[in-house]
């Protein structure tokens, strides 16, 4: 099969490096070829869009054009922000002729091919539709040794485009984790917002939003939160100590990527899944993903 185009985005090369590690590992285990987009540029995220819409679309247009040039049908964007901006660009180019015209002109100016035929996709949806719950289940080699988890989808992969999953009460991550035997809890905030960049720009507010997310997860009996986005993971992971300090909630829970959880079940080792890069809930992580459990819980 021809490989999936892979658009890491800036975060997966910094705070979200564990996401990239686990994603690549998981796809290798599933024999899904990934090919990184050559010389990709930043998606522009929300901040760029706040200054200049037109060139924000042009930024994404370049990435889409590169994908087109590399003849890949699907372009994988693991980061929710990247996914949304790329998808939004396609949508607006298509729905608003004026925008489409300008974007196409500027592409020509940079003698890049016009973007079409490229499908922007998120790994969650790829695993759910292309691989499927059953195939994941059949590939499980290691029993889930961790605790109950809350599946947290965040915002931009389900809104406004309901292509990765439903906007209200999405369930695909829950189904995938169910397939590997990880117990999930009903998490009403599964699509609430993590505040994004606010932890940086309006720190107290951003942290409070994550406090609410964590508190409700605890209340629902979750021992970890599983995420699909580097920013969500960072926000929930990095500020727990601060929350412990400021509130009565003694929260210290692992914030995992769904790729890490699935990768572990499919037999990858903690190292290659970047599990050592967690900030919070390290003691649980050591129990759940230790060498011993690797041996002890292994099937056969």
């Amino acid at each position: 099969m021809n490989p999936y185009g892979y658009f890491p985005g800036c975060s997966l090369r910094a705070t979200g490096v564990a996401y990239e590690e686990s994603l690549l590992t998981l796809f290798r285990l599933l024999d899904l070829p990934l090919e990184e987009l050559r010389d990709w540029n930043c998606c522009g995220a929300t901040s760029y869009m706040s200054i200049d819409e037109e060139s924000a679309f042009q930024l994404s247009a370049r990435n889409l054009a590169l994908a087109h040039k590399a003849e890949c049908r699907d372009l994988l964007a693991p980061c929710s922000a990247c996914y949304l901006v790329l998808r939004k660009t396609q949508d607006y180019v298509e729905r608003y002729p004026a925008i489409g015209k300008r974007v196409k002109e500027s592409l020509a100016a940079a003698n890049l091919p016009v973007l079409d035929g490229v499908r922007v996709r998120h790994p969650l949806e790829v695993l759910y539709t292309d691989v499927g719950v059953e195939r994941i289940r059949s590939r499980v080699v290691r029993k889930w040794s961790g605790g109950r988890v809350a599946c947290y989808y965040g915002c931009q992969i389900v809104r406004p485009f309901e292509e990765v999953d439903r906007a209200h009460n999405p369930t695909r991550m829950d189904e995938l984790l169910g397939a590997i035997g990880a117990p999930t809890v009903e998490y009403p905030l599964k699509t609430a917002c993590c505040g994004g960049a606010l932890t940086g720009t309006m720190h107290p507010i951003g942290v409070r939003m994550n406090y609410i997310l964590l508190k409700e997860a605890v209340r629902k009996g979750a021992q970890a939160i599983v995420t699909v986005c580097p920013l969500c993971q960072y926000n929930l992971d990095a500020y727990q100590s601060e929350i412990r300090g400021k509130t009565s909630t003694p929260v210290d829970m692992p914030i995992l990527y769904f790729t890490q959880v699935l990768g572990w079940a499919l037999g990858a080792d903690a190292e290659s899944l970047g599990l050592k890069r967690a900030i919070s809930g390290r003691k649980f992580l050591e129990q759940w993903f230790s060498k011993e459990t690797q041996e002890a819980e292994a099937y056969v």
Partner: protein
Amino acid sequence: MLRTIKFQREAEPEWARQVSERPGCEGLFSCLQCGSCSGACPLSIYMDYTPRRIIALVREGFRKDALSSMTIWLCASCYSCAVHCPRQIRVTDLMYGLKREAMQSHLYPAHLPAPVLAREFYNMVRRRGRSSEFWLVLRMALKSNPFVLLGMTRTGWDLFRTGRLSLKRERIKGMSELRALVGREVAR
């Protein structure tokens, strides 16, 4: 300012019309003022005007009030409003438009880090084709309020020891191509 009465001469109906023609804002004038957006917004509780009130301001043409509000900079673009709106108004996109206008006309609240971050991010991406979180946060802090750095040392250390703090300054090869595409000038 103490005065709360609004004189009609302060309204800019023409501007309202222009906004209603932006992508995603087509439904502006069909807004029911039902408040679904505000109710669904995770940040409305911190805003000076709720999203619904921003729409009310915009469509009545109170440009300055809308553009100088904190609200637009609190929007984390999570699109919750958009999927809850019974009139299918992309409130998030409306906010983007207002942010851009607030930047151009320098109407955004001073010392608010958000616009500074946006500008620095924008410039970094235009200069290098990629953003490097560490340097970005640094510049934002220095240009808005250096003291936030103090609060960040703990997090910075956590990231560093887990190998998640990259000091590398990313840059793409095809800068010329990118410039041809988006131009070279940066935001002040």
